[in-house]
Structure formats: structure tokens, C-alpha cells
């Protein structure tokens, strides 16, 4: 009786048929056995990055009680839009003047633990000739750096995007560390109206994981930001469903890439209805859904969750954050706001030197409000009308 043979060859003088003999157990050394990380000295060490301790310390510092992140890393093009909205030209001098205003606000470090910079700003000086990074450090604010190279169309998807920036990232992050940055940021997006397709979610999560691993190797705490865009008519349940999937995939790939969870920060979008949804949600509802998501998907090893505002008004963003901090959480739940911290400040400044102090006061007002929200103590007294204006822009390009 001929032995069962899995070979498809009509005659196989070479391949030994005894490989496929019935009943033989197929015990062979397999390449796919799950193994410990090759360089980890013990089971308690996730990875032997030379920056492991520093990363944990930096992440904890940023995730300190009563404080959050000022996102001021608008690309030159986006900063141009901000300046244009107050009638200013998009020149390096104007960008420098604006960023000087922000980083020099007295006492900013009481409420702000980290500031994300665009590359130009990281290497820039203030209008007084001091390095931007030095001013921040003096203010007790950790400098961070945007490292992605923006969104481009994702072929094979449903008109979705993916985030570029991995080429040469290792050397770039090392250089940024030399310049004084201690954390990094990479923003990718997921669009609910476009699906999202499995491909887009996978690409977003995988890119984040690769960026996070490379950043940690260079001593930068990676902020992991898969922004689920506000655009769309979908309800809050749909947002929740998509967020569950996105975060599951992100953490799976972070683990595959041996990323040290104690040395990362997250920058999620809150779980809200889509911007064009008929049903609005109260801060309490947003808090309930968002906390439910976090509890089901985010390991407690992660020290800080710094929410993005994504087009909410300044006050909305603060109220929602406050609602999430009414009871203790396993991670520091805070903010990483750009527009929701800068909007009134920018408009108050209007490009005039005589308005700098008033503008800085406006910034500090928002920073303090969000600081209180982080502690769950925000009351909403004395908020201006400007601060309540929504800042949602359809199809927002950051």
C-alpha cells in the first residue's frame, strides 16, 4: 500500500515519502514557537532599551496631577492658517513671535507638563534670543517633537489615509533627543464615514507601533495618537465600536514591536457622536463611553492618557475632561490640546505686541481650567462666549 504522499510531483525521486507516512507525528523544530525577547535579561524586563528608566520617568513627569500637554506643533502650513485667521502673514518671524508668546507665559508650567513642537520650533530661538527648548525646560515643561511626515492617500482603501515618516526615523529621533526633545508625537487618522476599512485600521496601528519602538530606542517617549476623526453622521455607539477595534489593534502591535508600555503616552479622541450626528451627547455621556472604552482596552501600565480636542470648543473640551475625572482612574487622564488651548489666546493677541500679556493671560486661563478639569474640580464659572464656540472643521487637515 503506497504511503500517503503530500507531494504534487508525478514522480519524486528526491523527496523522501517517509516524511508523510501515516501516523507519524510531525514533530520538528518549528520556527514559529513563541519566544522571549532575545535581549531581555529576565522575564521582568520587557526590553533592554538603554533608555528604559528615563522613558518611564519622563512619561510619569508628563502625566503629573493637575497638568497636561500644550500641543503647539502645527506644521508651517497649518500655522499659516492660524496666523491668517488674525490677518498675519505666514513668515518665520511671525511664527517665532507667536511661539515665543506661548512658551513665555509666566507660570505656564503649573498647568502644562509638556509642549509638542514642530521641527522648526525645536531648533528656533525666542524673539529674546533664548532657545525655545531652554525656555520650556526653565518653565518645568518637557519639550516634545512631532516626528511624522503627514498623511497621504492609502492605495487600495476607501479614500482613506496613512501616515508617513518611518524612513530615517531612527537618526531623526536621535538628533531630536540631542536637541533636547524628550517625547515624540505621531498623528494618524481613522475615518468612520469611509469605513473604516480593515486595511486602514491595520496600517494606522502598525505605523504607530513601528514609530513607538523606534522612538523609545532613541530615548523619546512616544505619544500614540490614532485620531478617530469627528467627521460623520454616526452615533456614539458606532464611535465606541470603532474605537474598541482600533485600540485593540494598536496594543497588539505595540506588544509585537516590544514597546515598553510604561514608557508611552496615549492621545486618543474622546468617544462622542460624529460632528454631523443629530443626537448630541452630554459631557456625562461622553465621559461614560470614553471611560468604558479605556477600561476595556488600555492596560494600567500606561501612565497617561492625554485626550485630543479634535474640534470641540474650548469649554466643551474642558467639561468633558472634567467629567472623566470625577473618580479615580488607573491612568492619569488629561489633555493634549492645541486649538482648545490656543484659540482665544490667538484671537486676543491679533499679532499686536501690546496684546501679548492679555493673550498670555487667556492661555493661562484655559490651561488652569484644564488643570482643574484634570483634577475633577472644574466649575465652569466665568467662561467667555468665545471659549464656547465650536472649532470643528469638516475634513480638517492638521
Amino acid at each position, binding site marked *: 500500500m503506497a504511503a500517503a504522499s503530500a507531494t504534487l510531483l*508525478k514522480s519524486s525521486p528526491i*523527496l523522501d515519502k517517509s516524511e508523510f507516512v501515516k501516523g507519524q507525528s510531525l514533530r*520538528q523544530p518549528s520556527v514559529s514557537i513563541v519566544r522571549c525577547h532575545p535581549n531581555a535579561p529576565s522575564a521582568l524586563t520587557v526590553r533592554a532599551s538603554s533608555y528604559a528608566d528615563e522613558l518611564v520617568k519622563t512619561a510619569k513627569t508628563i502625566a503629573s496631577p493637575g497638568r497636561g500637554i500644550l500641543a503647539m506643533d502645527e506644521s508651517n502650513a497649518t500655522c499659516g492658517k492660524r496666523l491668517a485667521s488674525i490677518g498675519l502673514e505666514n513668515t518665520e518671524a511671525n511664527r517665532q513671535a507667536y511661539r515665543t508668546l506661548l512658551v513665555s507665559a509666566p507660570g505656564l508650567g503649573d498647568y502644562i507638563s509638556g509642549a509638542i513642537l514642530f521641527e522648526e520650533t525645536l531648533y528656533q530661538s525666542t524673539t529674546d534670543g533664548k532657545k525655545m527648548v531652554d525656555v520650556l525646560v526653565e518653565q518645568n515643561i518637557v519639550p516634545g517633537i512631532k516626528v511624522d*511626515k503627514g498623511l497621504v492617500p492609502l*492605495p487600495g482603501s476607501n479614500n482613506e489615509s496613512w501616515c*508617513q515618516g518611518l*524612513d530615517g526615523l*531612527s537618526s531623526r529621533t536621535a538628533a531630536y533627543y540631542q536637541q533636547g526633545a524628550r517625547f515624540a508625537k505621531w498623528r494618524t487618522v481613522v475615518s468612520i464615514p469611509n469605513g473604516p476599512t480593515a486595511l486602514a485600521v491595520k*496600517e494606522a496601528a502598525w505605523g504607530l507601533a513601528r514609530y513607538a519602538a523606534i522612538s523609545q530606542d532613541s530615548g523619546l517617549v512616544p505619544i500614540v495618537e490614532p485620531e478617530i476623526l469627528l467627521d460623520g453622521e454616526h452615533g456614539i455607539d458606532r464611535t465606541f465600536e470603532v474605537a474598541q477595534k482600533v485600540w485593540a489593534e494598536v496594543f497588539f502591535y505595540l506588544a509585537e*514591536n516590544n514597546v515598553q508600555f510604561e514608557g508611552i503616552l496615549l492621545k486618543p479622541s474622546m468617544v462622542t457622536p460624529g460632528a454631523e450626528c443629530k443626537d448630541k451627547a452630554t459631557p456625562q455621556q461622553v465621559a461614560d463611553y470614553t471611560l468604558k472604552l479605556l477600561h476595556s482596552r488600555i492596560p494600567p501600565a500606561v501612565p497617561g492618557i492625554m485626550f485630543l480636542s479634535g474640534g470641540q470648543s474650548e469649554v466643551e473640551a474642558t467639561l468633558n475632561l472634567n467629567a472623566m475625572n470625577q473618580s479615580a482612574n488607573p491612568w492619569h487622564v488629561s489633555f493634549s490640546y492645541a486649538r482648545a488651548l490656543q484659540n482665544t489666546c490667538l484671537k486676543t493677541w491679533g499679532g499686536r505686541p501690546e496684546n501679548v500679556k492679555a493673550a498670555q493671560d487667556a492661555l493661562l486661563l484655559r490651561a488652569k481650567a484644564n488643570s482643574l478639569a484634570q483634577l475633577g474640580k472644574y466649575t465652569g464659572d466665568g467662561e467667555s462666549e468665545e471659549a464656547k464656540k465650536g472649532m470643528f472643521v469638516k475634513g480638517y487637515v492638521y
Partner: protein
Amino acid sequence: MSCFISKYADELVKNAAYIGTPGKGILAADESTGTIGKRLSSINVENVEENRRALRKPFVELMKESGVLPGIKVDKGTVELNGTNGETFTQGLDGLAQRCQKYYEAGARFAKWRSVLKIGAIEPTELAIQENANGLAMYAAICQQCGLVPIVEPEILVDGSHDIKKCAEVTERVLAACYKALNDHHVMLEGTLLKPNMVTPGSDSPKVAPEVIAEYTVRALQRTVPPAVPAVVFLSGGQSEEEATVNLNAMNKLQTKKPWSLSFSFGRALQQSTLKAWGGKAENVKKAQEAFLVRCKANSEATLGTYKGDAKLGEGAAESLHVKDYKY
């Protein structure tokens, strides 16, 4: 239809099929400036643009006239994968769409991206396989959007003391991951080519007969490469010119299911004796071209399974071209 149909779909299918025409194959002449320098220094020729041009002279129009499709290397080399023991991933995705569009305008019709994996105690790791497969799939999807047929190249280095069974196991696992990724990225397989390693024992292991290499290689492909792929163009990976030809020939002689053409995309294994014959001297050009055509013809016959092993062996034709941990 699960794959994405780019506006270049028909052209991609036509070009991929043309490259895989029985009797034809690819000359890989895309050595980086650094690598071509090593070739030139081996015959004591200086690595300056003049000499590089003199050796290759591939003007796009000249090629087209002879019915040779121009292709372009688009990756930006390998970088170490953090946390692994020397495994790598390939860079080059940033701005790739714009670059491919420019290459298409300049006359290129196919592209190439080399991913590298190695066999070791625990290698290739799942991370290395996933990262490389994903990179290949992204590159392939972008190329097709820009009218370039992507050659998918997951090279598993021959370095090591493993046997042919281990190589087969790893090759099958890697190719399966690649085709899964290509599917996830909705790449149109009819408009792609595969450039794999042949399945062989490691470089530190005893050699086996060409027929053995042929059987293991073809079986690995049967298990992992969908028939939609028009052609498999093997890399030579350090085999000598003659070895590579004889192995390819053995594969094409095998009586078994082979829905794709089995051909070649050789660099070293097509150029070695040509390089030696030229020696950098203008008066040797004709002799060098003759040596080159000898290898081309031999490989052409090998794609038809008719090579008799009787090619006039130029100097260096039987020389192993293996370089440990080869960086291309």
C-alpha cells in the same frame, strides 16, 4: 473583485506577462553607487560616474528599442529592526508615490524593492516577517497606482548552517505572510512579479543536487504562490553563474504543476564573467559583451529547461559569488 484596479491595470498585466515570457528574464543592474564600487574595485577600476556608465550604458530608449523593459530600484536600503538580533526592515515608503510617478514619466515600467530576512536560532522572528511583508505590500500597492509593475522580493539570505528543509519551512512561512499582506492591501497579483530565493541548504552546509533544489523550491511555490502571479524571477543570492543557471534549468525540467513562468533576475550571476572580461579596458568591450551574451543565452535556455550545461565558461563563471550578510 477584491483587488484594487488602478487606471494602469491593463498595462500592468501586459508588462508583467511580457517580463515572464518563456525564454526571457531580468538583468538586475541596480547596484547602488556603493555596491557598484565594489564590483569595479574587484577589477581595479575607479568608482566614478564615467566608469559606471561605461559598464552599464543603459539608456532607456536604447533598451526599449531592443524590447527590454526598464525597471527601477525604489527602496532606500535596510535598517536594523529594534529589539531584534540584527534583523532588518526596508525603508523607502515616504514620498514613494511621487517618486514612482516621476520614474514612470522617465520610462520605467517596473520597480523593485528588496526585503531581507535571515535564518537563525529564532530568526526570522514574527516581527521581522510582518514588518517586511507589510512594507512589500504597501510598496506594491503604491507602484501599481503609478503604473509600475512591482517586483516583490523577500530574500531569505543563504547564510547559515541550516539544511534545505529548514530553508523550505522558512521560505513557505515568509511567502505565505507576503501573499497575505498583498491580499490585505488589495494588490492586483496579475500585475506583480515575485523575486524569491531558491530553496537551498545554508552556505555553511553541504551542497545538494540541482534536482533537489528544484523540487523543494517548486513545492514551496506551489504551496504559497497563487497562480494569478504571472512569473517568478529568482534571485541568485550568491550562487555562481553556472550554479544559478543549472538550478533554474532543473526547475523548468520538472514535470509538475507550474502555473507561473520560472525565470531569473540575476545581478552577480549575469555580470561576473562579463565584468572580469572587461577589466575596465575599452578594447575588451566586445569580448565582455560576448561573455555577457553567453550567460544570457544559457539562462534563456534554462527558463525553457533546455540548457545542456555546455555554455563556454568565462573566467569566473564557476566562482561562488556568496558574500556573508550581503548588503546590496
